[in-house]
């Protein structure tokens, strides 16, 4: 699973929340060729903490679940660690069933 975050502490929180559920690769958003790296890593799911075009394109093209977890709630809903864990497990199972 790829965790692409502008805030390293958010990436760390996501990785901690998914500990035991997924192997996480933490990637900064400003990597030069993120698209190529995602193709190489071929993640089962992607988590981002802000708009990330490369992640969206990869998710669309490869049918990979994409989760957005903003660092600041700003009145919106940010999933709790437990909810993110459940969402990721559910989506990974769904992918396996479809395969």
């Amino acid at each position, binding site marked *: 699973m790829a965790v692409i975050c502008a805030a390293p502490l958010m990436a760390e929180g996501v990785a901690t929340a998914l500990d035991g559920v997924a192997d996480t690769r933490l990637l900064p958003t400003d990597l030069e060729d993120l698209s190529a790296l995602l193709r190489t890593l071929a993640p089962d799911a992607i988590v981002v903490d802000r708009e990330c075009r490369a992640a969206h394109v990869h998710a669309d093209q490869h049918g990979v679940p994409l989760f957005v977890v903003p660092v*600041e709630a700003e009145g919106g809903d940010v999933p709790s660690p437990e909810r*993110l864990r459940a969402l990721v497990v559910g989506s990974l199972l769904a992918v396996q069933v479809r395969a």
Partner: protein
Amino acid sequence: MPTHVLVADPVGLFRMGVRAALERAGGFVVSEAGDETELFEEIDRERPDLVLLDLHLPPFGAVAAIGRLEAGQGPRVIAWALEPDGDQVLAALSAGAIGFLTKDMKAESVVRGLHTALEGQSPIRRSLLTGVIGAFQNLERRDRYGERAIKLSSRELEVLGLIALGTRNRDIAVQLDISEFTVKRHVQNILHKLNVPSRDVAAHIYRSVFGAEGTPQFAVTV
């Protein structure tokens, strides 16, 4: 003796990341709060040394929470946000925060900031300083201009407000139902009272004090 840090932030995933980073760094005990109610409960229960306080902590934000903390002689507070502007940083510091960090900092930098605070200094991310200085200068300018603007009569303020909107003397006269000669006299008085050389500068002062929309923000003496 470990340093007790209270992380007050509505986003559980972010709190979890901060906790993991501080515990890995060592020397810290971490507790968490998701809103202002939990913040004060944790402060009463845990007596933290430092609080890392999200600028947008529900329900009223960090500035309101810091105001309450200061009144109660609470712990030292470092506010933070993802991309704060200078006004927000200045407001938090004015309310009583001892420092301001940003939430996109690496864990090592945050730990360094906490150690800086423990040494009695103020951790402020370097990239925020330009914005803070700008906000401070704007505040000073608004105060200074406000002192001058308060000398104007309500009619002069009306005239100046229209000047700030780019209205010409002839049109001001029509709008206020006065002669153009009277408008010119008002303009002369405005320039004299504000001690400025031109109507453009006077208009700039008006916009600085009352905002771009030209709506007075305080009661004006006649």
